[in-house]
Each structure stands twice: as structure tokens, then as C-alpha cells.
């Protein structure tokens, strides 16, 4: 059976298995667990003590706790990834055997955080390096060892980039003559116009 929240593929076996684990806690506790998982997905960190308390009544072992966090994480992030609306998610989860009250709580939390989740996923998508900042300086060269009177402006550009490897940063310093800089600026403005046309 194809599920939209799984990207029009079959639901993975482990998800099916852990949905029955989720059904063991009350729907109220599950909604609170969802809130914790959403916090984790949005980069705000997860409070494992709270999670342990929520699952204590159902006597979850550490394996069960990890499994329920994992399955909720998967459902919520995969639904956001494939841009599934709350109603479709609700019907698909019920088809997989998650009780109605649990589904209602989950989908309400999902709909509330739907666009925040997608923003976060967009932010963490693969990027091969990033420009962090640009600083510049205009100098005026008066003279050099090759020529007594140079009298030319010179621009120094400092580019701070985040490298392709995560966690590496690089600083590049370039000096550009006035003519070359005019060409660079014109080309970049053309690129900017093209980007604006796409927005």
C-alpha cells in the first residue's frame, strides 16, 4: 500500500511495528510526546527526562522509548518533507492502526508546526558552502617599486565563507582594480536581476 507521508512508497516495517508501541500510551501523553519530538526536529533540543516521565506509566523500556521517539520523528518529518496536509496524514495513520484519539492529537500538533518544520528542513538541506560575510576597503595606490606615480584606486574584498565540509570556515582576501571591479559589479547585478525575476 502506498502512503503519501512515506513519499508514495510502502510504509517501512519498523514504522508499522512501532505504531503499536505508540498506541500503548494514552493519547494525552502522546500529544505531549509529539510536542517534545517537534521541539527536537526544530532544533530546540529534546528533554529526555520529560520523555521518560511520559512513558513511565506504560512501563516502556529504554528500547521502547527510543523507538517511539524515532517513529514520531519519522512520521512528522516525512509528512513535512512530502508536504502532506493534516487530513491526509490523519486518514493514513488510522489506516496503519494508530487509534483515532492519538491521530487527532498528532495531526493537530503537525498542522500547528507544519510551516516551521518545512522552514527548518529547507534550512538544513544540503548546501556546499555558504558566504557568511563580505567586508571591503578602498585604497588609493600612490606609488610602487615599478612605477613612481601610480595614482589608482584599489578595492580590498574580504570574504568569509563556510566551507563544503561542515564546520570549516575560510577567509579569502582579494584585491580588485577599479575596472575589474566595475565588471564584477555589473555581472553580479545581472545575476541578482535574474534571481529577483524568479522569486
Amino acid at each position, binding site marked *: 500500500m502506498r502512503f503519501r507521508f512515506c513519499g508514495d512508497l510502502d510504509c517501512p516495517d519498523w514504522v508499522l511495528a512501532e505504531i503499536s508501541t505508540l498506541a500503548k500510551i494514552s493519547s494525552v501523553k502522546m500529544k505531549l510526546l509529539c510536542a517534545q519530538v517537534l521541539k527536537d526536529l526544530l532544533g530546540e533540543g529534546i528533554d529526555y527526562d520529560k520523555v521518560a516521565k511520559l512513558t513511565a506509566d506504560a512501563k516502556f523500556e529504554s528500547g521502547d522509548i527510543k523507538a517511539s521517539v524515532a517513529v514520531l520523528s519519522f512520521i512528522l518529518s516525512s509528512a513535512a518533507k512530502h508536504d502532506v496536509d493534516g487530513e491526509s496524514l490523519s486518514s493514513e495513520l488510522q489506516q496503519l492502526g494508530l487509534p483515532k484519539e492519538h491521530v487527532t492529537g498528532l495531526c493537530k500538533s503537525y498542522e500547528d508546526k507544519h510551516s516551521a518544520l518545512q522552514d527548518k528542513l529547507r534550512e538544513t*538541506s*544540503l*548546501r*556546499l558552502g555558504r558566504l557568511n560575510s563580505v567586508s571591503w576597503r578602498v585604497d588609493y595606490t600612490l606609488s610602487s617599486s615599478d612605477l613612481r606615480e601610480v595614482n589608482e584606486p584599489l578595492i580590498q574584498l574580504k570574504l568569509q565563507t563556510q566551507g*563544503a*565540509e*561542515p564546520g570549516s570556515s575560510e577567509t579569502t582576501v582579494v584585491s580588485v582594480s577599479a575596472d575589474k571591479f566595475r565588471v564584477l559589479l555589473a*555581472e553580479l547585478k545581472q*545575476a541578482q536581476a*535574474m534571481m529577483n525575476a*524568479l522569486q
Partner: protein
Amino acid sequence: TGVVIDSDHKPEQVFCFSSVVEEFGHIALESLRRGSSPKIYESAAKKLFVPMEMVQHGVEGLVFLLMESSKHMISEVNFLDCVLVLGFSEEVNRFLLKLYQEHQGQIRTIMKQLICSQPTYQNLEWRLDVQLASRLLRQQIVPTVVTRLFLTSGTDSSSRVLQTDPRTLLHIIYTLEAALAAVKTSHTRRILRNIK
């Protein structure tokens, strides 16, 4: 065959008290999962009123026992035989057996990770970009798939950036699917059956 425990690895007499053994068992498991530090030994030594070296030797002995037993997957009977040699009480022996049985799978998984020498697949991230224009040519449509392949070998991790066009990507998918199909052939199945 059982596990031979030489004098270097005999846990100390402090193992006479079962509550102590529990503490040692906990430290030994954590040490296997995350490594140990002098601080952990020191705080345990303070709690039990024994010198730190005794704690360290006890934990190291216990870790050795658990690792060797898990490595050879020895049976309950053989494990009890080995532990009998150390001369602990019935209660301690039973606790050690329980510790071994409950964590054997975990310990084997940890040990598997230690021997890995070839980089193995960990994760693949990808993005689909379309080049619309460049400095030299406007009005283009060039789809590109950029991927980052994450690899680990033991505790080191590395990543490689790879780029491909849709046609090559289809070819990669086709080749990998053929590799998967090879696992299902009768020839492969015959061999796998015989290994089990």
C-alpha cells in the same frame, strides 16, 4: 571450550559483595559503550572505600570477561564454569551470568564497530538544482543532482561531494538495483543457506 581467565584479569576480592558487583557491572558496561575515565574510577572508589586501582582492575577484569564471553558466544553452562574458578558466591555468579546474557547482543554490536577498517556507508544527502544561466550563457536549463556521501570507518567519519546529471543518476540506480537483484538469485541463496 570456555574462557581462560589469567591472573592479570582476575577481578579482586572486593567482588564478595553483590551490591558492589552491580556497581562494577554498570561501570564496565558504560566503559564498553563510551570508554572510561579516571574520574569514574575515583568516584566509585570513594563510594566503596577502596583504592582506585582496585576499582580499575575490577572493572577491567569484568570488561575482559564480558568481551571474551560475548566474542565466543559461550553458553550459560560454560560461562558459569569460568566464573566458578574465581571463587565468588552463588549470588555474584548468577548476577554476572545475568549481566552477560542481557548485554551479549549489545557487546557484540560494539565489538563489530571496533574492527571496521573499510569506510562504510552512513548517509546520503542530495539536492536537485537547475542551472538557469551563467556568466557566459543565459537561458539554460541544466538539471544537476548534487550529493554528499557520508562514510564512517570505526570512529572516523568523512564525506565526499559528488555531482551527477539525471541520465547518469538513472544509470547508477539501474546498476545498484541489479546488485540488489543479485542477492536474490538462487546461486546466492544456496551459498547463504550453507553459511547459516
